[in-house]
């Protein structure tokens, strides 16, 4: 089946669709168990992850062939604009993609030696909260309004650590003081509405940290907060992740945050990683036009007052049946015919470990280093 692409007007190549039944098989084939853990070099290895949403309008390829690694104690940033697959990547790692309509259709996610796509649901639940913590975007809606703060923090502890309720309470108090909530003991019986936004995000962090996880997935943890609180929360996250030697997968659309927090950064666009490298590489010698665009759109101290902020024209493409072409091509100033003919691969640039997905910046491309 060929579908004309809206933006190029040409026929898209045939796409092999993974049927929902195949996808289910993929997730359920030979179960692995939590007890047998091969030693792993990296905490998290994601290989060829594809998460698709089966909607009435077609299959949305929200995350398409994404691979990355995250070492123990490292902080990895996922940046990109809305709808380019950052959150879905993180949800896939915790296997929390809403199903239906979403499903992980291909790939391998190895967390601390375990292929989690082959874990049974019960074992997966033992990982969530215990070894993988999650900090959500909006602390105002991520806490249950009818339960006390103390209960909600203790929930994960009781679930995973098998502590008595007295010991759990002590642990909750300790966690609350750790995340900087004054007079923690008095506030256990309080409800979320008695906390401010920043304090609620501190509570969320306490929940994420409650069982000493090896990995924290922070999905835009500061987007809903104002700038000063944002700085406090980020500092708290980096402080505590250092203290507990916790790895952090930080999702953000704010390059400033990524620069300040991360060891490595993945730039995502339209469900794909388009550039990956260390923070220094990425901010000093970005090798993908989208990354230039993102960096260029930041307001700078030496901007002339009254000038308009620079933007990347256009919108990300729809992720239903994307063509075999560079996905950024319709918005790229440097695009040539080659970009419309075939999608570039993620290849190494001048530094080892610095990869980009762009014809123009390849060694034989038209934008030399």
């Amino acid at each position, binding site marked *: 089946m060929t579908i004309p692409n809206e933006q190029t007007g040409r026929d898209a190549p045939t796409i092999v669709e993974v049927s929902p039944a195949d996808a289910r098989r993929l997730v359920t084939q030979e179960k692995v168990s939590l007890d047998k853990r091969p030693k792993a070099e990296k905490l998290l290895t994601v290989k060829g992850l594809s998460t698709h949403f089966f909607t009435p309008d077609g299959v949305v390829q929200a995350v398409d062939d994404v691979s990355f690694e995250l070492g123990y104690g490292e902080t990895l940033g996922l940046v990109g604009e809305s709808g380019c697959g950052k959150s879905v990547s993180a949800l896939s790692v*915790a296997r*929390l993609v809403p199903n*239906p309509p979403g499903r992980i259709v291909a790939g391998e996610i190895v967390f601390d030696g375990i292929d989690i796509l082959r874990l049974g649901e019960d074992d997966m*639940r*033992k*990982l*969530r*909260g*215990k070894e993988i*913590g*999650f900090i*959500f975007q*909006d602390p105002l*809606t*991520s*806490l*249950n*309004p*009818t*339960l*006390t703060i103390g209960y909600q923090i203790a*929930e*994960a502890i009781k*679930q*995973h650590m098998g502590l008595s309720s007295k010991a759990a309470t002590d642990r909750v108090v300790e966690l609350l*003081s750790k995340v*900087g909530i*004054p*007079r923690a003991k*008095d506030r256990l*019986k*309080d*409800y979320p509405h*008695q906390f401010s936004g920043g304090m609620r995000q501190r509570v*969320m962090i306490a*929940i994420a940290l*409650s069982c000493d996880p090896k990995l924290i997935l922070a999905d835009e943890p500061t987007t809903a907060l104002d700038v*000063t609180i944002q*700085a*406090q929360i980020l*500092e*708290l996250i980096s*402080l505590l992740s250092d203290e507990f030697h916790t790895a952090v997968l930080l999702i953000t659309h704010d390059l400033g945050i990524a620069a300040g927090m991360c060891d490595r950064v993945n730039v995502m666009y339209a469900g794909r990683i388009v550039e990956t490298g260390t923070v220094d590489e990425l901010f000093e010698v970005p090798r993908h036009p989208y990354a230039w665009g993102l960096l260029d759109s930041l307001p700078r101290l030496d901007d002339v007052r009254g000038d308009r902020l620079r933007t990347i024209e256009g919108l990300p493409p729809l992720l239903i049946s994307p063509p075999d072409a560079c996905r950024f091509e319709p918005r790229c100033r440097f695009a040539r015919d080659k970009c419309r003919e075939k999608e570039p691969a993620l290849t190494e640039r001048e530094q080892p470990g610095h990869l980009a997905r762009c014809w123009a910046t390849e060694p034989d491309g038209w934008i030399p280093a």
Partner: protein
Amino acid sequence: MATVTRPLPGQVVRERRSAGLWSDAWGRLRKNRLALLGLFMVLTLLFLGIFGPFLAPYPYAQQDLKAIQQAAADGYGIGPLNPGQYGHVLGTDQLGRDLLSRLLDGARISVSVALVVQLVILLIGVPIGAIAGWFSGRLDNVLMRFTDIIYAFPDLLFIIILSVVFRETAFGRTFDGLLMIFVAIGLTSWVTVARLVRGQLLSLKETEFVEAARAIGVQDRKIITKHLLPNGVGPIIVAVTLGIPGAILAEATLSYIGIGVQPPRASWGSLIAEGYKWIRAEPHLVLFPAICIATALASFTFLGDGLRDALDPKLKGKQ
């Protein structure tokens, strides 16, 4: 850059109580006079339902034939006694049974109908609604079509069939036929609660705190009971409170047409049915049970309306 907050030096006395959902709701209910009146009347009804027979001047089935003969001798004719005559505050029926005592026994029946029927409704409706709402998809479809069928089935017909079939069995005779009435009314009216719970779960399960609970590895069962139902409990309470008058009325209707509680017990409905024969000469035989039914219905409705206002968070700060 900012720093991590430190506790304040020195002690700050907290004078704020931890205001939860329930104390909030109670605060709002307290300001609603009609709802308080309803609450008071409901509590009175409950009290009479439980202790009424101990307060009653006579056993409900005892015939005061002496008083009837005395009345005939005194020239009042043979028939029900008027209120106040011969020591019967509200009079008697034509067999000389004290009306007040019978009304108090009827209160017990109405109260038990009110409570047990709603319990049956909750026991059926909440699980079905919760399962349908949580799992959605095919299971939801099957369960909801089933509730549609129940909803479309004529209630009264179902209850009449049930009572005709089971009348002479042990089940039909338990608690003077009351158990069958409870089950019959419950089986036909859980639909509303099931739909309500399903709707609540459908919207609540999309909330972020549910996602957050899943992200810390809470089991589905616990998410439903600990996170979802407490959030949806307000509308359920309101539906139950407002469903009670319907159940009381249904029982009264059934007893009125003679398929409810078995004689010699009397519910308010069957008292009206008996008294109806004497309505010209002795209107009090219809009037007093009718007042009882009306008062009970009104009190539950007042309370239910008040609860709805108190438990609806969207109304917070208004009034």
